[in-house]
C-alpha cells in the first residue's frame, strides 16, 4: 500500500514547514493569546496560493499546543443551516477530552457569493460569539465575497507566500533521501521550477516520477510536462502523419485535448522521420513552416481567427503530403528536442555568459561578440595547447568550472590547471 507522499511527508513539526516563518510565528502568538482569555480578534484568516502550507501550519501548531482541531471544508458545508449546526455548537463547548479546541474552516473559496448567500454572514455571526479560536483559510482573500473579513479589529489576516525555490528544493531533497532515491540536482530543480512554488504539486510530481526508482535523472523528469498526455499525443501523431483524408488528420488533433503549440513541436520533431521521399519532405516541412507563419501572425495581431489556418497546415497540410513515402519498420516517436535543448542549455548559457563577460573585460568587445567571435577560437586553443590555455586562463582569470566548459573535459582541465600552479 502506497501512501501519497504529500501525506507521508507532511510536516510533523514547525521546523519541517518550509518558508513563511513570520506568518507562522504570528499565527502561533495569536493561538497562545487565547490562554489568557478571549482576544478581540476571535478569528484568523489565512490566505495565499495553493500548496504553500496554510493548512499544514495550523495542523502542526494545534498539535504542538495540545489543541483539538475540528476541521471542516467550508465548501462541504455551504448553507447557513449546516454551518450553524457544525460550527455553532462546536464553538460553544470545549472538546470531549477536555482539550482546547480550534475550529478550522478550510477552502473558503468554495463558498459561492450569491448561491450560498447567508453563509458568510452566518460565519461572521458565529465568530462574534465564539469561545474558541476559528481559523479560516482561502486562496483569494481579496475576493469581494470576503469583504466583511477585512475588518482588522475582528479578524487577524495572515498572508502565506510561496516558498523560495531553494527552500522547496531542499524539501524535495529531504524526501528523496528518506525514500532512498538517488536524484540528481537538475531533475529536482526541474520539478521545483514547474511547481511554481506549489509544494503539494511538487511533491506529487516527485512521487509520480521517483517512486520505486533507485535513480532519478533529468531525462526521467523532462517528460513530466507531458505526463498523462503521452498516449494521447502518440495517437494524434500517427493520425496526422499517416491520415488519408484532411478530415481524419484534423479530427484526430481536434479531439485530443493537447496544447496546439506543443502538438506543433511534436509534429515538427517527428515528421522528417516519416517522409522518406525528398519532394514529400519538402512539402511537409513547408506545411509546417506555413503553420508557423500563421502562429507568428496570430501572436502579432492577436487575431485568433487565424488559428484555424495554423491548425489546417500543421495537421491536414502535413498528412496530405504523403504520396509514395512508406517508411519501413517501426519508427519510434521522439520527444521534441527543441524543448529539451532549450531547457538543458539554460545552465550552459549562464556559464557561457560568465565567460563572455571575462572576455569582454579584456578584449573591448560586447558579451555577445565575445561569445560568438572570440570564445570559439579560445576553445580550439584550450583543446590543443595546454600551455597556452594555462596562460590564457590566468590572463582572463577563468575559474575552474569555466576552464572545464571551454576545454570540454575533465582530463584536459586537470592538465591545464596543473600547468598554472607551477
Amino acid at each position: 500500500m502506497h501512501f501519497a507522499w504529500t501525506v507521508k511527508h507532511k510536516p510533523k513539526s514547525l521546523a519541517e514547514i518550509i518558508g513563511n516563518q513570520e506568518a507562522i510565528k504570528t499565527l502561533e502568538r495569536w493561538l497562545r493569546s487565547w490562554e489568557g482569555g478571549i482576544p478581540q480578534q476571535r478569528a484568523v484568516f489565512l490566505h495565499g496560493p495553493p500548496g504553500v502550507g496554510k493548512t499544514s501550519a495550523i495542523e502542526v501548531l494545534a498539535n504542538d499546543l495540545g489543541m483539538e482541531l475540528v476541521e471542516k471544508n467550508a465548501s462541504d458545508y455551504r448553507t447557513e443551516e449546516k454551518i450553524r449546526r457544525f460550527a455553532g455548537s462546536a464553538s460553544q463547548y470545549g472538546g470531549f477530552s477536555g482539550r482546547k479546541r480550534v475550529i478550522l474552516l478550510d477552502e473558503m473559496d468554495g463558498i459561492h457569493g450569491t448561491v450560498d448567500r447567508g453563509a458568510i454572514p452566518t460565519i461572521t455571526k458565529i465568530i462574534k460569539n465564539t469561545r474558541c479560536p476559528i481559523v479560516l483559510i482561502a486562496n483569494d482573500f481579496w475576493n469581494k465575497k470576503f469583504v466583511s473579513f477585512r475588518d482588522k479589529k475582528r479578524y487577524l489576516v495572515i498572508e502565506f507566500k510561496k516558498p523560495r525555490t531553494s527552500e522547496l528544493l531542499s524539501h524535495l531533497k529531504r524526501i528523496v533521501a528518506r525514500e532512498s532515491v538517488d536524484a540528481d540536482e537538475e531533475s529536482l530543480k526541474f520539478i521545483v521550477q514547474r511547481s511554481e512554488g506549489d509544494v503539494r504539486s511538487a511533491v506529487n510530481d516527485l512521487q509520480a516520477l521517483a517512486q520505486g526508482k533507485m535513480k532519478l535523472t533529468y531525462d526521467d523528469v523532462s517528460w513530466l510536462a507531458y505526463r498523462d498526455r503521452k498516449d494521447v499525443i502518440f495517437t494524434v501523431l500517427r493520425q496526422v502523419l499517416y491520415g488519408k483524408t484532411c478530415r481524419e488528420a484534423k479530427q484526430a488533433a481536434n479531439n485530443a485535448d493537447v496544447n496546439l503549440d506543443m502538438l506543433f513541436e511534436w509534429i515538427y520533431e517527428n515528421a522528417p522521420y516519416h517522409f522518406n521521399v525528398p519532394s514529400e519532405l519538402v512539402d511537409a516541412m513547408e506545411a509546417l513552416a506555413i503553420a508557423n507563419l500563421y502562429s507568428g501572425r496570430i501572436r502579432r495581431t492577436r487575431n485568433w481567427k487565424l488559428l484555424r489556418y495554423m491548425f489546417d497546415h500543421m495537421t491536414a497540410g502535413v498528412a496530405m503530403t504523403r504520396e509514395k513515402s512508406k517508411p519501413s519498420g517501426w519508427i519510434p516517436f521522439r520527444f521534441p528536442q527543441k524543448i529539451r535543448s532549450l531547457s538543458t542549455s539554460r545552465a550552459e548559457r549562464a556559464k557561457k555568459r560568465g565567460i563572455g563577460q571575462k572576455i569582454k573585460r579584456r578584449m573591448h568587445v560586447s558579451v555577445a561578440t565575445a561569445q560568438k567571435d572570440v570564445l570559439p577560437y579560445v576553445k580550439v586553443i584550450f583543446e590543443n595547447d595546454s600551455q597556452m590555455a594555462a596562460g590564457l586562463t590566468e590572463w582572463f582569470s577563468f575559474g575552474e568550472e569555466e576552464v572545464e566548459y571551454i576545454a570540454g573535459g575533465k582530463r584536459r582541465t586537470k592538465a591545464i590547471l596543473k600547468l598554472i600552479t607551477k
Partner: protein
Amino acid sequence: MSFEMWAEKYRPKSLAQMVDQKQIVERLASFAKSRNIPHCIFAGPPGTGKTTAALCLARDLYGDVFREHLMELNASDERGINVVRETVKTFARVRTLGEIPFKILILDEADNMTRDAQQALRRTMERYTRTCRFILIANYSGKIIEPIQSRCAPFRFSYLPRQEQDLYLKRVASGENITLQEDGLNAIFDVCEGDLRKAINSLQAAASLGKPVDSEIVYSVVGRANPADVHSLIKTAMEGNFVEARKKLREMIIKYGVAGSDIIKQIHTELFRIDIPENMKTKLAIVVGEVDFRLGEGADEEVQLSALLANLVEAGYQLKGG
C-alpha cells in the same frame, strides 16, 4: 609564444602604429595634435580597427593616464535607456582635471541602442559637449538616428586590403616565433576577408596545434571555431541527411546563439559558391529569399530554415539523378 590573446597583445597603442585606414588615421592624428575632437561616429564592418582607433586616439590625447579620462560602454550589453540616463550622464557631466577640458566616452555597438535610448543620448551629447566628447562605434551608421548623425563627424572604416592584413599577420607570426606558410595566409584571407580580429584569432588558434600554419590547419580550425559553419550545414543536407542537418542548425541557433538572419545571409552567399548547376542556384535562391522574408516577419528561425534544408535535401537528391 606568449600567453595572452594576440589580438590584444598586438593591438596598436597609438595612431602612429595603425597600419590600415590611412585617411582616417591621418585625420584623427590631426585631432590629437590640436588637442580637440568633435563627437565622432566610427562606422564599418567588424575587425577593421574602429575600437582600436578610438582607444589610440584617447591614448594619444591623454598619454598613459588615458583610462582616467575615458569610459567604454558597450551598447549591446547595456542598451537600455536607463544606462544613458544614469551612467552616461553621470560620467559626461563631471569636468575632468587636466589640460584637456573634456573626457571621452566610447559607445561601442551603438547601432544596438533602442531609438528611445538614442534620443536620450542626443540630449546628453548636446548638454555636456563641453565636458565630454562621444565616439559612437557601429557596424551600420544607418541605424543611428539622424539628429545624432548630424552632430558627429563620420568616419567610414572598410575591410583591410589583402596586403595590409598579410603584413599584420606576418608581424604577429614573427613576434610569436611561429611558421606561417603562404597558403596559410591565403586561407586566412579567404575566410576572414579583411576582418583582422578574426584573422588574428584564427592564426592563434591554428598555432595552438603546434605545427606550421598552412591552409589545411587554418580551414580545420576555422571550421571548428565557426559555429555558423553553413558550408557543412548545406553539405549535410545535400547528402540527404535532413535530421542531422536540422540538428546542426539547432545547435547554431540555440547553443551558439547565431541569429537566423546571419545564417540565411551566409547560406545565400555560400549557395552561389558551391558546385551545383547554375539553374539550381537560382531556384534555391527563391526559397532562400522567401525564408529571409518570413524571418523578417517574425516567424520561427528554426522551423523556417528547416523548410529550406528540406529543399536542399531535394536538390541533392535530384543531383544524384533521383
